[in-house]
């Protein structure tokens, strides 16, 4: 890890903390908070300040310090949480975000940023502790080494034993920065540097850290705060923090645990003031006594546990549960997404190879080989699923973002809007979650701008004054559905029709179903808003929304009742990388139908084919069907050209369902289930509808993955134009 990489970590963590701050501020805004919530937000601010301090990002430290103080006062109940303060804190959070994005040099040149920061601080002044008007100055005073022997014994003294990783310097972490930061927390009473590991000059490497430190720190800060100082190095370092209440036994346990010579460490600890000769001697005596006791009563032998050490451990356990956000970094590993993608690609190749081996094995008819290959297939599938899971993230992260959007937009529009979130734990491919932000923002803004009415209007039609907006995610038949619904005025079909005719999108005579009319809003250049606001209604957007969703192999459905509200349903596949498919053939071309869309396969000839229409009668239901070879104009190889189109056997019909649409797909041959690794066809084929990508079959041949929603749409459009012609 270079310094840049460490900085990257800082930015990533700062982002997370800012997100959590926003989340908590929203809770404060709703009045749903307790002491723990306040602690969490304080910790977030504190961690940002602390980490920024390590990288000497003074502009962040300075501003965040004040915020931290205000939050500290809030959690100590010295000030009350009121709307004015929360609004201000929202702005402050945004300002920190802006600061994090700005380097120190840029900040020095950026007058407006400096001014807005100063402005915010002035506004915050009623909540800033009067006793600490110029906090930085105060801190500087604290830093002055004023060792007072009397105080030493009375004040709380923490003992920190630092065994930083020897690669610490290579990772861009200077131990000095930690010590400097610690001195900001309180007063460093004593530092003892242990140089035992220092090698002979021939073996000396300037980039390796050979020193260990024993620090005695007097501070009011809690364990978590001190621990956080070492957040960036705690993974590969041995850091022991003993609370001021630690007993001699704890120190002795520590001395035993440390690699250095015990006698030498005792001396060091005595120098630090953490131990004294007397206490040590006393402890020795005690120990001997206990050992004597133990040897006497060996039955119920409970080794004397060092009390304070245990307490600190317990404490840290508690902290871990409490501030999950902060602790996440301990249990999670950050990896470069490229590496993950690379792994997924390799597993894709593995799946293809496994299928090839499967094919070869089945021709060999060697039972042992077949069995081995069978096992292999099972494991490949498990590896595939596990790897894909790595890329899955909870959709809640992106949902959270909208709380803020809704809050701000509602204020801007002067409407009362309440956002409900459901199914935040639903998982989705990370790649998709990233691309969902824009379309969701657009739909949500549209709902707030055009859907939900102003308060007076709502009250006059007998609705509750607060508009209800719901964001929900759930699984449905192998897909993830994201539904955005509101209880606003709904979409007026007549307005859409008028507008569409006006804009020459449809002709006045065209008869369209409600659903078809709803979908006109996705037409490029279509906008129903009579006034253009800066939120929506610029006529660009809904078509982009549709395109974005389609690029993720998804679809959008609209349900709306005039006066009652609207619902947008985005349906997405779970992942884009590998899907379970059904292998079929039409003419000479191989196709894959995504397994999740298939409801059944039937024999076409055995069902009543309604003459003259692309429909069949399936158990009394009329189902439209399309023939792959017709829709894709597959003529077979020239040498195999059929003299008469009707003689082509159209035997198999795959019934597929997507959302509410059911359709049949006529193919020549069914092969069976297959795991397919999706290979995008590339930008050249972007405008090709009905085919979502390609995949390689076990024998190396290329098959095309059918995009069922698009095919259904194509079938419907064709039907429409037929109807049009018939009219």
């Amino acid at each position: 890890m270079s310094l840049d990489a460490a900085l990257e970590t800082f930015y990533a963590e700062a982002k997370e903390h800012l997100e959590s701050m926003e989340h908590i501020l929203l809770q404060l805004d709703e009045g749903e908070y307790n002491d723990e919530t306040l602690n969490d937000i304080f910790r977030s601010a504190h961690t940002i300040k602390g980490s920024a301090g390590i990288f000497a990002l003074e502009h962040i430290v300075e501003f965040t310090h004040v915020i931290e103080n205000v939050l500290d006062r809030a959690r100590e109940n010295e000030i009350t949480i009121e709307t004015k303060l929360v609004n201000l804190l929202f702005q402050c959070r945004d300002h920190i975000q802006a600061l994090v994005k700005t380097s120190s040099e840029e900040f020095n040149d950026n007058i407006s940023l400096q001014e807005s920061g100063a402005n915010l601080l002035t506004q915050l002044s009623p909540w800033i502790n009067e006793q600490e008007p110029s906090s930085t100055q105060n801190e500087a005073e604290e830093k002055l080494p004023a060792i007072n022997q009397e105080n030493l014994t009375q004040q709380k003294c923490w003992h920190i034993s630092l065994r930083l990783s020897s690669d610490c310097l290579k990772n861009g972490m200077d131990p000095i920065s930690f010590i400097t930061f610690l001195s900001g927390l309180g007063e460093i009473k004593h530092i003892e540097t242990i140089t035992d590991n220092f090698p002979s000059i021939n073996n000396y490497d300037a980039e390796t850290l050979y020193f260990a430190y024993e620090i005695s720190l007097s501070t009011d800060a809690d364990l978590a705060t001190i621990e956080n100082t070492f957040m960036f190095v705690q993974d590969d370092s041995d850091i022991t923090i003993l609370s001021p209440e630690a007993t001699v036994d704890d120190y002795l346990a520590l001395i035993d645990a440390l690699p250095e010579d015990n006698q030498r460490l005792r001396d060091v600890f005595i120098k630090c003031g953490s131990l004294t000769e007397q206490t040590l001697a006393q402890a020795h005596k005690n120990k001997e006594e206990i050992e004597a006791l133990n040897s006497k009563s060996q039955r119920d032998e409970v080794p004397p546990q060092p009390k304070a050490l245990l307490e600190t451990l317990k404490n840290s356990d508690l902290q871990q549960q409490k501030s999950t956000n902060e602790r996440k970094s301990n249990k999670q590993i950050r990896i470069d997404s490229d590496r993950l993608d690379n792994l997924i690609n390799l597993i894709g190749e593995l799946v293809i190879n496994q299928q090839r081996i499967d094919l070869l094995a089945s021709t060999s008819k060697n039972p042992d080989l077949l069995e081995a290959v069978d096992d292999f297939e099972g494991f490949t599938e498990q590896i595939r699923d596990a790897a894909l899971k790595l890329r899955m993230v909870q959709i809640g992260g992106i949902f959270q973002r909208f709380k803020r959007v809704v809050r701000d937009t509602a204020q801007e529009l002067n409407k009362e809007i309440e956002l409900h979130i459901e199914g935040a734990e639903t998982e989705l491919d990370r790649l998709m979650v990233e691309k969902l932000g824009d379309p969701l923002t657009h739909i949500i803004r549209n709902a707030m701008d055009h859907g939900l009415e102003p308060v007076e209007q709502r009250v006059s039609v007998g609705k509750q004054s607060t508009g209800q907006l719901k964001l929900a995610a759930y699984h449905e038949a192998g897909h993830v559905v994201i539904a955005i619904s509101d209880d606003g005025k709904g979409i007026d079909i007549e307005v859409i029709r008028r507008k569409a005719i006006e804009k020459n999108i449809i002709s006045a005579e065209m008869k369209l179903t409600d659903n078809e009319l709803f979908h006109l809003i996705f037409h490029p250049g279509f906008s129903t808003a009579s006034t253009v606001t800066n939120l929506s209604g610029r006529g660009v957007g809904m078509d982009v929304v549709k395109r974005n969703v389609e690029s993720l192999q998804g679809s959008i459905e609209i349900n709306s009742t005039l006066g009652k509200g609207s619902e947008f349903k985005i349906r997405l596949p779970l992942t884009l990388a590998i899907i379970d498919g059904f292998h079929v053939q039409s003419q000479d071309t191989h196709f894959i139908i995504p397994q999740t869309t298939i409801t059944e396969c039937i024999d076409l000839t055995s069902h009543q084919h309604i003459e003259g229409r692309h429909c069949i009668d399936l158990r009394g239901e009329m189902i439209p069907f399309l023939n792959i070879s017709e829709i894709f104009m597959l003529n077979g190889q020239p040498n195999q050209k059929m003299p008469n189109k009707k003689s082509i056997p159209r035997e198999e019909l795959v019934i597929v369902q997507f959302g509410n649409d059911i359709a049949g797909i006529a193919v020549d041959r069914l092969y069976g289930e297959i795991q397919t690794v999706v290979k995008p066809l590339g930008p050249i084929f972007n405008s090709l509808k009905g085919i979502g990508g390609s995949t390689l079959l076990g024998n190396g041949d290329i098959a095309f993955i059918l995009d069922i929603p698009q095919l259904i749409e194509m079938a419907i459009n064709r039907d429409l134009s037929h109807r049009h012609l018939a009219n």
Partner: protein
Amino acid sequence: MSELLHQRDKKLSQQETRQFLTFTIGEEHFGMELHQTREILEYDGVTQVPLMPQFLSGVINLRGEVVPVIDLSVRLERKPIILHKRTCIIIVELHESSQHCVLGLLADSVNEVIEIPEQDIEDAPAFGAKIRPEFILGIAKKAETFIILLDAEKTLSPKELAHLVEAELK
């Protein structure tokens, strides 16, 4: 002094040569800059992609990568290439605006790699080559035959190809 420098510059530029992979389509000889070509494959069939314009022969499986194959002859507004035993596919790698793109080109035969000094590359004639002038990097002459040096970035621009596909689908 400046004249001396100028002469030296001229001399230097004269020494610069560019390498081209030459191939034939029908009776014509073409060249493409060597650094843009990756490998040459024997033609072993392509998988046709439905509804594609004629210049897009299909796709092939290149060691797990699905690569589109272009009939350059159609792209250059000539008759489609006639497949035979020696037909091959030249794999071309383009880096258009940081977007990495791999394409295959159908050719009747691949000839050789030639080195052409910069000054021997002549500008494309304004007309008469029966090829859109922007596709041509220059013309070289080797053993009494003209070699049309193609600008791969322009001839095979994924953007333009995508537009052509879109137009065909409409």
